[in-house]
């Protein structure tokens, strides 16, 4: 599905709501409810009050009027339904996406090859029967039957089914673009693919099961919160259960009144136990995963989402993340005694056939600064010398001229071989350029050094501000680059990262991660190549690019479908948001209890000690209306908070102290005040309507 479609799926899609309504009734099944102790208690309470209603109705000797008990029990059932609805809403959004994904996971006929060669014999086989290790041929127009690795060929592939990105991508054997995903389609050419997974374990399968929540397990933090909530529930269970003997004793002691009724006790219990957070907890968790999916990130476990909020150290690749992917030529610096025009001309000639972005940028610079027009290299009869790993230079041979450009040490070696000398002045230019964070490219003709082309890394716009944000959040950013320390330091300073790792190799990356982890820090990183896999596996939060290799994707616990390395920052925010939403709603839920006491306690005991009417500070109309208002408020607040639970509390990158103060004010103090107002309003309404 495309991105546009996704954004259309608003928070309250009627289709999802319809499905959620049905689901919430189905979830009344006690076998399901028992997984959530708080809501299970509410359900038991609902059953109890319903039984009390029938008892009152049939015998006519109920503990209160049947109408009152009925209204209480209806609202208790509604409380359970609201909580179920919240969870179903959160799940519904995942399910809708899973359905769309499932459509792409169709059974296709695959062309299995007898040998891993294109022209070996083909046999037709259903994609569901393919096993790990099989080799298949996929040609233009075919759907790739299974996840696999390209072993031969180059092709453009449409991966929009998975990524939502409609532009085709290139897949080829070898290198970092060899992984293909089942369900995507080859648009042109052909590929020979070795299947790397068994049926049912493909990336698509895992994605479906993640978004559907089928494999959703409670995360450790969620379990810890569950325990706290269950503990509070038992405390309040004891509070209300012992009120019965206490009130019986007090009736005898005071010589008047009647003990508190079961209906009121159940109402008090339901109002006190943290139903708001209890009812929304699982919705918050599912919604967190869903927000990741909205950001086009697939979390392989809920744990990874949670851990993202805790990240202390962020490892970011320089190229593509901090800087624009390519270096750009920004200046020609001639050697002493060489005219700049000569240098610019030679540089342009050597780059005309150079199709790398760097080469093109040299041609552009020569045209912009020195008015040198592009020339047709074939018309000039020139012969282009391609870059090779041995010479580490590229250049052009033309009319007996040999122009070369390359790294300083490579050119130096070349000059010496030609019998020339490498001028000391050029060496100092090279060092200066490097110190400024740029890459020096030395240009030579024959045995004469003409000068230096300065290539600059262009730091992405706005990235410095993002890093400042991270710093305020308490996250340290480390830039990873293959550059030399001088260049790395300059880029690091310009981008505003906290630290850098220069001349990085897979081993040094792994070592860096381990060092931080040994210091107790949580490390996040992104990666796409096979050589990133060990570091990804070691990192606590590892975001693999979808364009990356199968090995990288296997090692990561999050996969970014957009393959956008800055996505990490968003991922961290989503993780934090998830935890914050849990914390704020817990605080809100507990703070609510104070007002509920002032509503229910005087109502419960006024017949025993009329003086306790002094606690009715909200001046609620009657004891019945007071209890009913508290129960209604308790149910409605769940519905009101569903949008917050699904969207998450707004995250602003501020220090912990400020965030706590803001949230404590809004959800703590707010949680104390809101129910006083809400309960009073509901009381006025139900009194006006003569409901009790």
């Amino acid at each position, binding site marked *: 599905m495309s991105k546009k479609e996704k954004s259309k799926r608003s928070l309250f899609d009627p289709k999802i709501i319809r499905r959620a309504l049905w689901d919430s009734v189905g979830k009344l099944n006690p076998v399901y409810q028992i997984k959530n102790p708080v809501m299970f208690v509410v359900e038991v309470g609902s059953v109890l009050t319903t039984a009390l209603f029938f008892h009152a109705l049939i015998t006519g000797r109920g503990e209160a009027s049947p109408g009152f008990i009925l209204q209480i029990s209806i609202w208790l059932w509604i409380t359970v339904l609201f909580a179920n609805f919240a969870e179903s809403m959160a799940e519904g959004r995942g399910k809708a996406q899973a359905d769309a994904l499932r459509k792409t996971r169709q059974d296709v006929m695959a062309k299995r090859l007898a040998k891993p060669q294109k022209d070996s014999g083909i046999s037709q086989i259903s994609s569901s029967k393919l096993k790990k290790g099989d080799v298949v041929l996929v040609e233009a127009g075919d759907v790739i039957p299974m996840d696999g690795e390209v072993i031969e060929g180059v092709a453009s592939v449409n991966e929009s089914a998975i990524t939502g990105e409609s532009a085709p991508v290139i897949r080829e054997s070898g290198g970092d673009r060899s992984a293909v995903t089942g369900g995507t389609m080859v648009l042109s050419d052909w590929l020979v693919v070795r299947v790397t997974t068994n049926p049912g374990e493909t990336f698509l399968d895992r994605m479906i099961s993640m978004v559907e929540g089928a494999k959703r397990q409670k995360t450790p933090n969620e379990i810890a919160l569950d325990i706290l909530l269950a503990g509070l529930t038992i405390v309040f269970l004891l509070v209300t259960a012992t009120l019965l003997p206490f009130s019986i004793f007090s009736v005898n002691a005071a010589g008047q009144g009647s003990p508190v009724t079961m209906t009121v006790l159940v109402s008090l219990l339901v109002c006190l136990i943290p139903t708001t957070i209890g009812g929304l907890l699982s919705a918050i968790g599912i919604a967190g995963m869903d927000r990741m999916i909205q950001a086009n990130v697939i979390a392989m476990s809920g744990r990874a989402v949670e851990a993202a909020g805790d990240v202390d150290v962020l490892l970011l690749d320089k190229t593509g993340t901090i800087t624009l992917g390519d270096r750009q030529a920004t200046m020609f610096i001639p050697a002493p005694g060489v005219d700049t025009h000569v240098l610019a001309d030679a540089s342009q000639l050597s780059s005309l056939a150079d199709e790398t972005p760097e080469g093109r940028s040299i041609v552009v610079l020569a045209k912009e600064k020195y008015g040198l027009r592009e020339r047709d290299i074939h018309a000039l009869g020139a012969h282009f010398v391609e870059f090779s790993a041995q010479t580490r230079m590229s250049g052009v041979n033309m009319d007996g001229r040999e122009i070369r450009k390359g790294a300083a040490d490579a050119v130096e070696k070349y000059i010496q071989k030609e019998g020339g000398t490498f001028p000391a002045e050029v060496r100092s230019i090279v060092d200066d350029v490097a110190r400024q964070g740029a890459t020096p490219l030395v240009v030579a003709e024959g045995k004469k050094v003409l000068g230096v082309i300065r290539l600059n890394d262009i730091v992405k716009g706005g990235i410095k501000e993002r890093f400042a944000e991270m710093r305020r959040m308490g996250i340290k950013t480390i830039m990873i680059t293959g550059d030399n320390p001088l260049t790395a330091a300059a880029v690091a300073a310009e981008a505003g990262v906290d630290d850098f790792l220069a001349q990085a190799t897979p081993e040094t990356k792994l070592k860096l991660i381990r060092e931080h982890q040994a210091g107790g820090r949580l490390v996040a990183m992104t990666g796409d190549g096979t050589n990133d896999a060990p570091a990804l596996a070691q990192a606590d939060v590892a975001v693999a690019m979808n364009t990356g290799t199968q090995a990288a994707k296997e090692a990561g616990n999050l996969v970014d479908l957009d393959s956008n390395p800055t996505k990490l920052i968003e991922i961290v925010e989503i993780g934090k948001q998830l*935890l914050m939403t849990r914390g704020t709603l817990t605080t809100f839920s507990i703070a609510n209890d104070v007002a509920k006491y002032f509503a229910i306690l005087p109502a419960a005991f006024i017949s025993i000690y009329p003086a306790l009417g002094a606690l009715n500070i909200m001046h609620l109309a009657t004891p019945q209306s007071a209890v009913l208002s508290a129960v209604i408020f308790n149910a409605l607040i769940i519905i009101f908070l569903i949008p917050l639970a699904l969207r998450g509390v707004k995250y602003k990158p501020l220090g912990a102290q400020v965030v706590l103060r803001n949230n404590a004010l809004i959800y703590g103090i707010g949680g104390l005040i809101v129910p006083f107002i809400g309960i009073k309003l509901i009381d006025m309404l139900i009194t006006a309507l003569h409901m009790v």
Partner: protein
Amino acid sequence: MSGNDVLQAVAYFVVLVVLAKPLGLFMARVYEGRPTFISRVLGPVERLFYRLCGIQPEEEMGWKQYALAVLLFSAAGVFVVYLLQRIQGVLPLDPQRFPAVAPDLSFNTAISFVTNTNWQNYGGESTMSYLTQMAALAVQNFASAAAGMAVLVALIRGFKRHSASTIGNFWTDMTRSVVYILLPLSVLYAFLLVSQGVVQSFDKYKTVALIQPVTYETPRLDVHGNPVKDAKGNPVMEKDRVMDQTIPLGPAASQVAIKQLGTNGGGFFNANSAHPLENPTPLSNFLECLAILLIPSALCLTFGDMVGDRRQGWALLIAMLLVLAPLTLVCTKAEQAGNPHFASMGIDQAASALQPGGNMEGKEVRNGIAGSTIWAAWTTAASNGSVNSMHDSYTALGGMIPMLLIQFGEVIFGGVGSGLYGMIIFAIITVFVAGLMVGRTPEYLGKKIEVFEMKMAAFVVLIVNGLIKTGTALAVSTKAGVAGISNPGPHGFSEVLYAFSSFAGNNGSAFAGLNGNSFFYNTIGGVLMFLGRFWVIIPVLAIAGSLAKKKHVPAGLGTLPTHTPLFVIFLIGVIVIVGALAFMPSLALGPIAEMFTH
């Protein structure tokens, strides 16, 4: 509330805080085995003790082993205290020839002293021999206090260590608590108290002639002990004249010193520190009251120093002070305001040159209102439980304050050691909720708070709450329980609720109206005190063990700081809200109902 009341409260608090810091830092040195200014004198004593008991002081224990040592040590204590009471009649140092104490009462007393509760269903001067007082009760005053401190130190080590499997050595921690801290302080205090007139003697009780003999009427009894009635059915009265008085003696000063310092609270005499020979002067009152909170407040700073961030200790101490100080003043104000029933009768209850004013029922004139209410608040904030006035006679609001302070879970200062480990449990819960609010999995002092810690913390909160509630429910719904209640209406309910809060919170003070020396209260009280103590210690040690195993997470900008005013306020909020929410309904049927009924 008079200016004098406020001035006294301020003086008590200021002196307390001033003394807390040097003592706290001294204790940190003691527990870390660093040399102190008295090591040269006491070091040999410590080492001699290790040699005598065969203790390897450097041997480390895991949390289970540590917990087992606490339990075995305490079980042995219960057995010895029980035995000494049962056979005191045949042992020396019993000048009054007291017989063996009844089995159920012995059981209750043994548990009570071993758990640092010191609930007393007996009158000291009419039940216990000098030997029992000294060898059984005073010894447990030291041992139970030291055990509490040891458990706290083990928990602190849990925060301090990382990737470790042990949390210290119980025997070493015990020995150091006694040798370096409790014993020297008690000796100093005993001398100070003797200087004020607290008795210290092995003599028989003295009989002295009354300067003003008293005459009173009592009903005449027949041979069966029933009152003889006249023709109209009225009891026949006869005059009785009292010429002399028995003055109880005993080694009181030495025992009073540790009962105050070790948050034990078990009085040498039945009237506890209201007794003129246990607490004779305003100065002794000040010293004894100060002793209640001295070690609990200093331990906060010990904690801060040991975890390497003193601000953490101050934060907890300030949180405790911010709860206690206002409640002390509310209690004082309520008592100084006097009895509302007298006010409606037009009786002058204002403080003046001629009278202290206020509600003086159950208070000693030499202590006055403030001297009594500060004590009442402090002794219940700390799980001390000694009294110098009768809480039962307080006004509804004034009496609710001590009860509420117990129901906060004995974490506002609380018992020596036990109060602070309880407070740390609350800090862990606070960190969990507040930590989530800032978007991180919570951590406290560099240790991540995860499922296991929450399980244990929730259990601690649950157990104390549950014991108080179920115990009270059992008492008010059984004949045996109701039989002990002596006051009608909500006040009677308050008596029972107070007693069970005191049992489970290991406080030991009583809302004196309840008659606790019955089989029902002796046994159920004993069981509750036991559970309230050890079912908290075990999870606390489990947390210590689990924290010690974890890696240390360095604090960053995104870490929730736990030494700031904001955190202190949040912590207070959690304690007060959890305490208030759990007890508001029961309090509504007791003191709150009483308060609004005029």
